[in-house]
């Protein structure tokens, strides 16, 4: 098996898996879990992309 994922694809996979796992571990009610997962996923992606753009001017 030789998977080729881009940086963005890897980050989205990481964010989704960790958000779902944390949502199930830290919340009991289904609605609370969904809210936690969506919010956590959004923050993972927004902060990841934000840091990426902040570092962009120094990348070359």
């Amino acid at each position, binding site marked *: 098996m030789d998977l080729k994922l881009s940086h963005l694809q890897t980050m989205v*996979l990481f964010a989704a898996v960790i958000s779902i796992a944390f949502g199930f571990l830290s919340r009991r009610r289904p609605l609370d879990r969904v809210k936690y997962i969506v919010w956590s996923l959004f923050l993972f992606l927004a902060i990841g992309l934000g840091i990426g753009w902040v570092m962009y001017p120094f990348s070359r």
Partner: protein
Amino acid sequence: MTEDTMAGTTPRRDSRRDTMAFAIGVAGWVLPGLGHALLKMWGRAVVIFLSVGALVVVGAGMRGNIFTSQASDAFESLGYLADIGTGSFYFLAKSLEPNGPDVSHATGDYGTRLLATAGVLNLLAALHAYEAARGRKA
């Protein structure tokens, strides 16, 4: 029940529960999700099994570095501790990488991080199962 009897049984019961909780924590470490399954927390068990499994399969598929116990520096030791956190899935990852790791490309480096994440996530889940078995709020 007299106070003497209660004083004699309660610590023994606590000790038994602590031993069971420890065994459940170890079971959760050895096979991701098993600790929660033993506690009949089926949703959490399935999610932990699939999450750790997905991270291990993709991380190994990207030919991430799976550290061994023969570490040459502190970072490799930490990497090994993180990787062994996946329990039996450590050997699954090894079997999925017949040609060994390839970190000469960024993809392999991402795979290394996913494998470490899987281990740390499983350790967290095992600790959660241990705490739940001890009766702490979980």
